[in-house]
């Protein structure tokens, strides 16, 4: 993990979100290396401004607009996959609401990259 980003506000936020995701029932773990390999149609912000906790990518694509949080997660087969993804989305939205109360509602994209 890049040390120079983990202590930025973004970095710490991403780490907090990562923790909240791992607590969601049905989540096995977050997929590492998200920022290296994420395929997204969204314009990328400069690499250093994005949070880089494994499996969490945090950007603000429209300058001062809402956050965009992208999560890559490996889920457990026992749970219904869409329910796990919804749980992750809700956990992230809730956590951001607590940590950054003044922010407009974020866009949260959840991608299941594996099933265990």
């Amino acid at each position, binding site marked *: 993990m890049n040390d120079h980003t983990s202590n930025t506000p973004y970095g710490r936020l991403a780490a907090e979100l990562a923790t909240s995701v791992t607590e969601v029932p049905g989540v096995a773990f977050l997929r590492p290396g998200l920022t290296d390999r994420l395929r997204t149609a969204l314009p990328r912000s400069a690499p250093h401004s994005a949070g880089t906790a494994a499996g969490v990518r945090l950007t603000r694509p429209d300058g001062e607009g809402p956050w965009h949080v992208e999560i890559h997660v490996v889920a457990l087969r026992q749970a*219904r996959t*869409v329910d796990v993804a919804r749980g992750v989305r809700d956990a992230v939205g809730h956590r951001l609401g607590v940590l950054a109360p003044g922010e407009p509602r974020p866009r*949260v994209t959840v*991608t*299941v*990259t594996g*099933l265990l």
Partner: protein
Amino acid sequence: MTDPIEPPHGTSTHEDDDELLPCGRLLSRAWADWEDQARDDRSRDGEAGDAHPRNCPHCREAVRGLDELESAVRGLRTETAAADSYDSEPLTRRIMDVVRLELRPGRPLPLGEPAEDLWIMEAVAARTLRSAAETVPGVRAGSCRLRHVHEDGTVEVRLDIHAPLGVPLPDFTERVREQVRRVADRALGMPTAAVHLRVTDLLPPTADDDREGRTP
């Protein structure tokens, strides 16, 4: 020096380390004849074969080294024959450890409603759907491709299967389709519009096929 006689196999590239035997033949030709005879299973007695290699002392001497080499080769072949005794499990594990860490490029397919922005990678969903198909006894699943239909946010499944010989196909394929649809909905929550099934082979059943549900 006159040009050497062209030996049968077009081995003119041998010129630099080839040797002209006193009988006029090239070493490479004597050796090629030896090799043909060594590998040929058919008896040559009845054929109008070339008697020279058998009768010529120079050619016989020229291949003596090959015979000696051959017995050492047989020994080395036996010594290095590992195929039956090799335990490939540790190597397989090491390889799979790396494979499982690699992220294959792939496209995401939607879960739930379009507005929810929830996705699953194609390869992951495909694994689940292949397993679903294989819960029907006799099915072996092959290619499984998923296509995101942007207009309504659904997924189109294209699945190849091998089906068992002797079953009435339309009923059978409908069973498989049903399984795939059911699992796509219940296990994944992926909105499936259509399941296109293609039977790519018909196979006689094996002992495996009696088991209900293949483990992935």
